[in-house]
């Protein structure tokens, strides 16, 4: 047991330090477990959730097609043109857009293009971009909690424990919407003075300059193929369980994403296909594979079983305390720890917890944990991958945000959202809506 824990802790430190590529660290950790006999090669393969990897690969491919088509920048610019680039609606639209897009794609991609666009717009409008970028990151992490494919922890929790897109959309979805609205209102109240000043200072020349930004035409064929594939994937993700029962075919979440992605790739030209495949985030897929092996090693030595028993004992079989412990414990921890390995480790704890008589249903535990780790990721610049992306983009192109400023801007609304989420979660448990 000690060896598996040591490997895991060392890998965790290496990943958190961001000095080494995280996919290599995770794969090396998994390989060491095999080399030293903690896992046999077949056990290591069995611990990898191929459904998670398939779902992630399929969604990454579809998103990559839409990114190559310039769809997301077009969507943001079209929305902003509609409001004539007035600072107040622009501020609101960008935050809501971050939350909405992050519900259907990974928040890293959302922040990659949104941070760049926000910085350009804010520079032209003479607004401080930092509060808006941080608000977008928080909204992206919170919006991602709404669906199975929004945030990596949801993908892991859903695919390994058997919850569908519809389960997430109807349970964490409403909480995420409330959370995103709270973040938007909070950010607006905090910045309303500077936004009003920017609105007064807005001139037709400034509007003209912004209009010239990102004027590249939308790639029609790529957009058509990407959107068709994307909608097909969302449809299959919602209905794959009844469809599987109806047809008798093994349609799981991975198949639901991989089939549309495969069809979309076939519909592309050769050069387009190569470009799309090169831009798929393969490193994240490898990272997930390595991580599954490392966490599998810990599962094999029964660490999670003991953790689950201790947690059930500590909460004295009080369901409300347990729900809150799962929301706040991993939630606050995900502010400083990577929430992907944390969520993966917690899936095993949840499985064991749900088997203990008197504990709430597995679904309730999953919603509580998912909301905690997804929203808790907002707390620090390293809490989630989207934070790291936005923080380093700003560092290179604008100037460092600094940890202190991040904490001042992000912590209060995050805690408010977590408190509101706690109240909704407890209410859900009381009325049986889980």
């Amino acid at each position, binding site marked *: 047991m000690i060896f598996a824990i040591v490997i895991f802790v060392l890998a965790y430190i290496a990943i958190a330090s961001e000095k080494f590529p995280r996919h290599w660290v995770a794969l090396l950790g998994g390989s060491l477990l095999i080399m030293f006999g903690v896992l046999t090669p077949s056990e290591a393969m069995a611990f990898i959730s191929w459904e998670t990897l398939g779902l992630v690969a399929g969604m990454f491919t579809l998103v990559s097609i839409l990114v190559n088509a310039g769809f997301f920048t077009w969507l943001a610019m079209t929305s902003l043109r509609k409001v004539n680039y007035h600072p107040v609606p622009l501020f609101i639209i960008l935050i809501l857009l971050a939350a909405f897009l992050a519900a259907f794609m990974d928040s890293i991609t959302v922040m990659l293009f949104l941070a760049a666009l926000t910085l350009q717009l804010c520079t032209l409008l003479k607004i401080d971009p930092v509060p808006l970028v941080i608000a977008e990151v928080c909204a992206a992490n919170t919006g991602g909690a709404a669906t199975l494919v929004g945030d990596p922890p949801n993908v892991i929790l859903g695919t390994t424990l058997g919850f569908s897109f519809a389960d997430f959309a109807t349970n964490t979805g409403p909480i995420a919407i409330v959370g995103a609205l709270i973040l938007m209102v909070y950010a607006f109240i905090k910045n309303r003075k500077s936004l009003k000043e920017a609105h007064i200072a807005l001139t037709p020349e400034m509007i003209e300059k912004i209009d010239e930004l990102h004027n590249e035409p939308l790639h029609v064929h790529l957009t058509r193929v990407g959107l068709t594939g994307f909608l097909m994937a969302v449809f299959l993700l919602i209905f794959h369980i009844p469809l599987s029962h109806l047809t008798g075919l093994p349609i799981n979440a991975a198949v639901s994403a991989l089939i549309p992605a495969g069809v979309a790739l076939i519909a592309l030209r050769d050069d387009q296909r190569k470009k799309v495949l090169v831009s798929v985030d393969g490193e994240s897929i490898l990272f997930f594979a390595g991580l599954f092996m490392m966490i599998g090693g810990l599962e094999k030595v029964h660490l999670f079983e003991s953790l689950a028993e201790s947690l059930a004992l500590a909460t004295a079989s009080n369901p409300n305390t347990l729900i809150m412990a799962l929301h706040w414990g991993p939630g606050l921890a995900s502010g400083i720890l990577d929430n992907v390995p944390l969520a993966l480790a917690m899936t095993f704890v949840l499985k064991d917890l749900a088997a203990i008589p008197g504990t709430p249903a597995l679904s309730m535990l999953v919603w509580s944990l998912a909301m905690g780790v997804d929203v808790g990721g907002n707390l620090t610049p390293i809490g989630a991958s989207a934070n790291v992306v936005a923080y380093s983009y700003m560092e290179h192109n604008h100037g460092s945000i600094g940890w202190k400023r991040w904490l001042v801007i992000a912590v209060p609304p995050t805690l408010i959202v977590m408190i509101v989420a706690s109240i909704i979660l407890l209410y859900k448990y009381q009325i*049986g809506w889980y």
Partner: protein
Amino acid sequence: MYALSLIGYVMIGLLLMSMMARARPRVKDPAPGKALKNIPMGLPSRFQLQRSSFLALLTGIAFGLLAGWMTWSTAGIVAAIALVTILFPMRYTFTTKGISVGDGAFYPWNGFSGFSAKGSSLKLDHPSLFGRLTLFVKPAEMGNVLEYVERYVRTR
């Protein structure tokens, strides 16, 4: 005509009340035995529980519309209330003594003679209850539920 519409509205009111009472009983007696697990009832289960009242209600609405004593807007409101009632979250409670369906009906374990599970449906054989009680449980929860069912239905 007046008497007919009055009877019709009273019947519809009673049906709505009975649906409400099933979804949210005013008096909730705790299910006998030690509670093992509360599992949310899927939408098919809730519809199954309310189907007779719901179909009777729809018949009443159709009759009211055809006979002319009910307006389309009233029919819409009544149907909407009925649908909302079905959407109310409910749950199964598994205890050491049996299964409680939606804080209302309780079925002791010793009434079941066998079971079968497929996908999200769990069929518990029961000599009365038209031969079986069907529970709709999320596939993710099925493992834990089956553990209890296997323990109590087999060891009888």
